[in-house]
């Protein structure tokens, strides 16, 4: 992957060259998938959304609206929008959303829960956060990006990201407490 040349790949993408498309896909699909999967608790839906992000890239480049500076930044930002759209649609159909995202609650009444149950509870609490809070936690803890990388991807300064991640974690902690009490 060290031979990946982003500029060259984008030029090839403009011409819809399979080789360039494959190179970009191999370079970034896993990251995009992990980002999406962190926020959406369903493998196949996350796969569909992640691959759709690459199709949007193809279309955007054809319309000369593709990435200007960072390809990775463009992909993550597009993935964030795609997830927001998906979640918005899901909120309109709450009966489907509840089936996977909300735990049945029975494990939480036990004093000791296993890691899987705990994670399910955290995911449920996480789903209650604002899109921006979800975004920053995904980048920092789902993707493991540094504060600086996150600031670039969010197009914010570092102090703003520090404040945002503090509020996001505080909110997550509150939501976990609420889910725990249900």
């Amino acid at each position, binding site marked *: 992957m060290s031979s990946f040349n982003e500029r060259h790949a984008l030029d090839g993408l403009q011409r819809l060259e399979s080789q360039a498309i494959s190179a970009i896909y191999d370079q970034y699909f*896993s990251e995009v998938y*992990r980002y999406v999967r962190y926020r959406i608790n369903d493998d196949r839906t996350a*796969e569909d959304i992640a691959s759709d992000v690459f199709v949007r890239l193809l279309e955007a480049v054809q319309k000369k609206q593709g990435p200007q500076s960072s390809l990775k930044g463009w992909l993550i930002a597009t993935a964030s929008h795609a997830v927001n759209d998906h979640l918005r649609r899901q909120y309109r159909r709450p009966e489907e959303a509840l089936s996977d995202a909300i735990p049945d609650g029975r494990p939480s009444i036990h004093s000791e829960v296993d890691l899987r149950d705990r994670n399910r509870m955290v995911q449920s609490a996480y789903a209650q956060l604002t899109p921006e809070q979800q975004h920053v936690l995904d980048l920092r*803890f789902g993707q493991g990006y540094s504060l600086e990388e996150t600031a670039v991807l969010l197009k914010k300064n570092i102090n703003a990201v520090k404040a945002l991640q503090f509020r996001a974690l505080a909110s997550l902690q509150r939501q976990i407490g609420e889910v725990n009490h249900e």
Partner: protein
Amino acid sequence: MNNLYEALEVCLREIERGASIEAALLRYPDLADELRPILEASVDAANIAVPLPSETAVQRNRAKVLQRAAQMREAKAKSSQRTWFVSLRRLVVTVVVLLVLSVSGTGLVRASSATVPGDNLYPVKRTWEDMLVAFTFNLQQRDALEVEHENERLQELQELFAEGRSAKVDFNGSIKSQNGNLWIVSNISVMISDQTELRGQGISVGSAVRVKGTTQGNNNIVLAEQIELLPAGAKLPDTEDEPEIQQEKHEDPVQQFEDSSNSGNGSDGERQTVEETKTPESESENNNESVEDGSNNTNTEWGSDSNLNDSHENESNDNSGSNSEDDSSLNSNDSSGGGSSYESSDGGGRDD
């Protein structure tokens, strides 16, 4: 608050390096109670991080993306073919239209170039002139073109006079004199009547005006329907501009006009009350001229106005207002003078 955010970031880095929450908090005992639940939430957030996608998922979705790219390639190829065809068709149509325009359009314009007001093709001539001005982007060239067109208007008037035709005319000019109801506008005699509409304040000798009116049969005169004061900078014809000659001329039309009125249908008393309006310079010079050389009083273009005076015999000495000093050489080429020279030189037919 900034200290809290900064302490959180430092603690997060410690935990990332493998430290426990309590170990990380040792640095900030004062903030420990506040930071502890936040750090616990951060560990929870990190624990829900997902693994990399399976190889099957990667392959499956790569195929999906590449398939979409293939569809887009196909659509693009069809689109470019269609674009090429449309471009070719447009090119052919453009060439045909240009050919038709160049053959019929320029022929029409050429045919209209010799027309005068009242001719059927005259509007084509004026439209073509407007187009030429509109598509001349060099300001100096545009100004010159507009002056040229104004000269053309005067030329058309002379042709109408020569043919004794009556037609609606519209021209720009500078007022050379205002002798009662008879004004001289750029060497054209303009008759003012009660029906003449004067637009603008302070129209006087030297003013640039636009005259709309009608030429009168065999009279070398325009009956004015409207005289409009033009703003500064308006384009005027540049046919004649020699003050001395103009001043000589100012005298004559009035005289002849008065003669004409007296011998014609006007009452004597009425015409004798006509006042002469002139610039101070022209007044003094005219007085001198009339004393020194009385013959000049009758040797002007106005002398050829058969309906205005009885001095047809003077036509042989007729000269233009601008060229009176070179009578002999310029009489036959007079561009703004009396009717006789035009009658002899411009008797040809017209393209209607």
